[in-house]
């Protein structure tokens, strides 16, 4: 999917100016509140019109101020998942799901109710009224509804912001599966770096009504490491092994990790901040931290006034951050061996 915007819009004192083209199936739009993300997206969906410019999808112009072209919202085939589900209260779940499907031209109806309902696991909800659903169920129905309209682009405007953490990471797999299974390109908006990294390939970062940059999610995370006091968030898939002395033991690659998590699920996603990893040049003989990993440095990068140290540990990858002076003191460079110490309490389970 190719999206191209060369347009400007004035909103009171706020001015949006964009000139970019982005290609891909999983595109992200990242930026703080008020940066213009929702406005930009509004231009693509058709809920707002630019003052001047052109908006195109897959080479086809859907708005062109010079030609006076403005394709109405209902004809653009751009689906939208909002922060809140906005399900139609007077229709039951099934009719909500089919609302867009019915209005889709027959030749475009490739996605069927049964398949979507299967992927989202909402068969048992079909005949229910929408007010009897939990938050997660409602958001899943909302996603299903948007997908069933067979859009050529799905825009998701902070679809996870309204959910609590455990719910968020339950929904994310549904989101990914649905779009992968039905091959729907999407534009994912969030202010959460973690969500961006999981959901997207290319990310456009937006600030003050302009596109500040276009890069992969990973590159974005690294570049932001120095600014964020949470540093770079390592996302680790840990497989549960057993309990020992009040701690949970997990498999991670070839290594064992001790974490003070409380999950007995076979596999969970954990986050570990780069700031919580302490590096040793030599093996410290005694240390209070329960985790000590032998790693090899694969890359060193700059971010702000910090250095990110990318390491390979037992087949998996980890990034720690240190100040420049510390890197010099330890003589850290690519290829050397280091020991990474991590407290059991530093791991936080995501979902």
């Amino acid at each position: 999917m190719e999206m191209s915007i060369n347009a400007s819009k004035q909103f009171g004192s706020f001015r949006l100016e964009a000139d970019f083209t982005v290609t891909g199936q999983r595109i992200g739009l990242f930026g703080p509140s008020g940066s213009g993300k929702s406005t930009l997206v509004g231009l693509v969906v058709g809920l707002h019109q630019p003052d001047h410019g052109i908006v195109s999808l897959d080479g086809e112009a859907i708005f062109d101020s010079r030609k006076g072209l403005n394709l109405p919202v209902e004809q653009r085939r751009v689906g939208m998942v909002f922060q809140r589900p906005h399900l139609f209260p007077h229709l039951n779940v099934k009719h909500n799901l089919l609302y867009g499907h019915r209005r889709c031209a027959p030749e475009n109806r490739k996605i069927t109710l049964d398949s979507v309902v299967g992927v989202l696991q909402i068969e048992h909800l079909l005949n229910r009224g929408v007010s009897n659903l939990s938050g997660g169920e409602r958001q899943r129905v909302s996603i299903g509804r948007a997908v069933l309209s067979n859009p050529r682009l799905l825009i998701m405007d902070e679809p996870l912001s309204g959910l609590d953490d455990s719910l968020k990471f339950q929904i994310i797999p549904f989101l990914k599966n649905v779009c992968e299974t039905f091959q729907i390109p999407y534009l994912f908006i969030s202010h959460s770096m973690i969500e961006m990294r999981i959901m997207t390939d290319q990310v456009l970062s937006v600030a003050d009504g302009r596109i500040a940059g276009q890069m992969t999610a990973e590159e974005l995370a690294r570049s932001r490491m120095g600014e964020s006091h949470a540093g770079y968030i390592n996302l680790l898939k840990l497989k549960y092994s057993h309990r020992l002395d009040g701690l949970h033991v997990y498999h991670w690659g070839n290594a064992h990790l001790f974490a003070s998590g409380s999950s007995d699920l076979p596999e969970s996603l954990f986050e570990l901040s780069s700031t919580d990893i302490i590096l040793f040049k030599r093996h410290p003989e005694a240390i209070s931290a329960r985790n000590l990993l032998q790693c090899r440095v694969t890359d060193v990068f700059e971010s702000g006034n910090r250095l990110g140290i990318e390491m390979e540990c037992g087949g998996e990858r980890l990034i720690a951050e240190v100040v420049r002076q510390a890197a010099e003191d330890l003589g850290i460079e690519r290829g050397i061996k280091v020991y990474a110490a991590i407290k059991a309490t530093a791991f936080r389970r995501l979902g």
Partner: protein
Amino acid sequence: MPGFTPTDYSAILLSIKVATTATLISLPFGFTVAYLMTFRKFRGRVVLDVFVNLPLTLPPVVVGYLLLLLLGQQGWISKVLLQPLGIKLIFTWKAAVIATAVVGFPLMVRSIRTGMETIDIRLIQASRTLGAGWFDNVITIILPLSIRGIIAGSVLMFARGLGEFGATIIVAGNIPGVTQTIPLAIYEYVSSPRGDVMAMALCCVSITISIAVLIFHEWLGRQMIRTD
């Protein structure tokens, strides 16, 4: 039943007939105006708002008189439209319906607008992204979600219509069997020294109908809550 004459019975039936007809013909217009006022921006919006609310603030006899000027023999609409088509409205039950509809119209529009204003605009945006054009939107989203306002407006208008007197007597006259509704019949009895018993009897009928309408409205409201 204290000796109701056939004329009295026809007054009761006529009241219900006029109020019901006025409500039914006002519904599409009321809905349209409420929709325009709630969801569309256009020049002259304020003017429309003033016009629609005018009958609410004017004395009904003034409304009746204005209608008479418009629709009567010398009236502009009469000369341009009605007389060429051979339509006579003054002093017919149709005039009673028109008078009732005009006087009650602002009540209906207000109620429907109140109902419409509670509709989350995101729902409308969502339906558009799902492929619904503006008319589709109106029928499948706005109409069902404003049904409470529509019902409230209809009941209010019907009740107001049952009691309409001032405009009706001017533009439809007091014609037993044709335009004499309950209020007009009561008026005639009240003017007559021996008419107090009948006036009271008709008052009771009027009160009974009003109570029935209000109970119906309550019941409908509960039905709606149950299906939510």
